[in-house]
């Protein structure tokens, strides 16, 4: 896996400081530095960083949303704040690093943000159960037949069967007994609902 971090900041002291702190994290295989705002877009297109730490004065609200669009919203952006900025503008960033923050605090922010992004990746919508599939699952593990489910949800048995097929495909579980374990595990039903 190659994770690239881009640090865009004009102050060399701050840039190098951030470099050192993030380098020691051992999560980024490469860390790029940018000292002036010009060409930030090109650098991002070229290196496809998985995270950007940027001085808010390098861009503006519109520029930020352009960068987000450019990376399909998959690149979290952290603001380095040591001057006064409009709160509404700063609120658009995924997180904020202050110059006074400790090394631990900065690292925690970065790893948490990175984890959140990776989790979003894993939970592709096609793997999560739709709300209709959840309805079917709930009734199914409570012991309802396809016919009963179809009556209760006002859908055809054919649709019930097709929901069941999708549930099985997404979860890799076929039997009702196995689905019951899954439902309890994910608090879709409670133990009292079965037995």
């Amino acid at each position, binding site marked *: 896996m190659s994770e690239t971090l881009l640090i865009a900041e004009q102050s060399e002291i701050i840039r190098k400081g951030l470099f050192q702190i993030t380098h020691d994290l051992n999560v980024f295989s490469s860390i790029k530095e940018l000292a002036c705002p010009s060409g930030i877009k090109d650098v991002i297109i070229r290196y496809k960083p998985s995270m950007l730490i940027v001085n808010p004065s390098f861009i503006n609200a519109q520029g930020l949303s352009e960068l987000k669009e450019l990376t399909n919203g998959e690149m979290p952006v952290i603001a380095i704040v040591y001057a006064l900025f409009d709160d509404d503008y700063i609120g658009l960033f995924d997180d904020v690093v202050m110059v006074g923050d400790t090394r631990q605090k900065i690292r925690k922010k970065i790893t948490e943000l990175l984890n959140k992004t990776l989790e979003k990746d894993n939970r592709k919508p096609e793997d999560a159960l739709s709300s209709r599939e959840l309805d079917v699952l709930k009734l199914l593990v409570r012991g309802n037949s396809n016919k009963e489910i179809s009556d209760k949800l006002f859908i055809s048995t054919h649709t019930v069967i097709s929901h069941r097929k999708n549930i099985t495909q997404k979860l890799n579980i076929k*039997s009702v*007994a*196995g689905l019951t374990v*899954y439902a*309890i595990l994910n608090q879709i039903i409670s133990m009292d609902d*079965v037995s």
Partner: protein
Amino acid sequence: MTEIIVSAKTKLADIIMQDKRALVLFPRFGIELGVGNRSVKQECINKGIDTDFFLLMVNVFLNKNYFPGGKLKKLDVDMLLRYLENSHQYYLEEKIPYLEQLIEEFKKRVDHPATKQLERFFMQYITEVKEHLAYEDQTAFPYVAALSEQVKSSKADISDIDYHIGVFEERHDNIEEKLSDLKALLIQHFPPHNDRYIRIRLLNELMDFEEDLINHARIEDKVLIPIVEQLEKKIG
């Protein structure tokens, strides 16, 4: 895994070295470890095992694509039944109790309401496996034995047994489905819970059991059923 075709000259040790599944297979013929450099032929003579039968069973068990073909005609049905009963005994006395013990340990380690339900599901599965084994031991095998006896001596009478081996074939699917669900739950859905080693052991054992059952079912499908069909034809 490269599949090996075993011949009369193959050394027993070489078979085990190359395919660990032979470890559980040999005891079913009464062959114990400490095999030295003995070949299949030697050991079969020592132990009074029909060499052709041994070769047929080992090759069907170890190789997915091995077709016994013409070798079936000469096969001793009683020996086959004894082998199958031995495998069932191994499941009942060795595999299943160990799996139960591992589930119990997993339950102790993972304190979650879903664990109780997993145990219930597992026990349901075990009950089904046991029912399946009991069905074969008490219904299918005695039927085959009586059938073979009748063909041999035309003494035994099975005309009052209302049974046909065709029923036998449909019964393996459910068991495999539940096992696959158990695996998916442990591999994909239970969150980590300070249970790493016990979960690995449990999965290892489940998958081992699964593979053994599949190979066992293959012997029943490719060896037992064709033989019984031949016997049924002879009787008419």
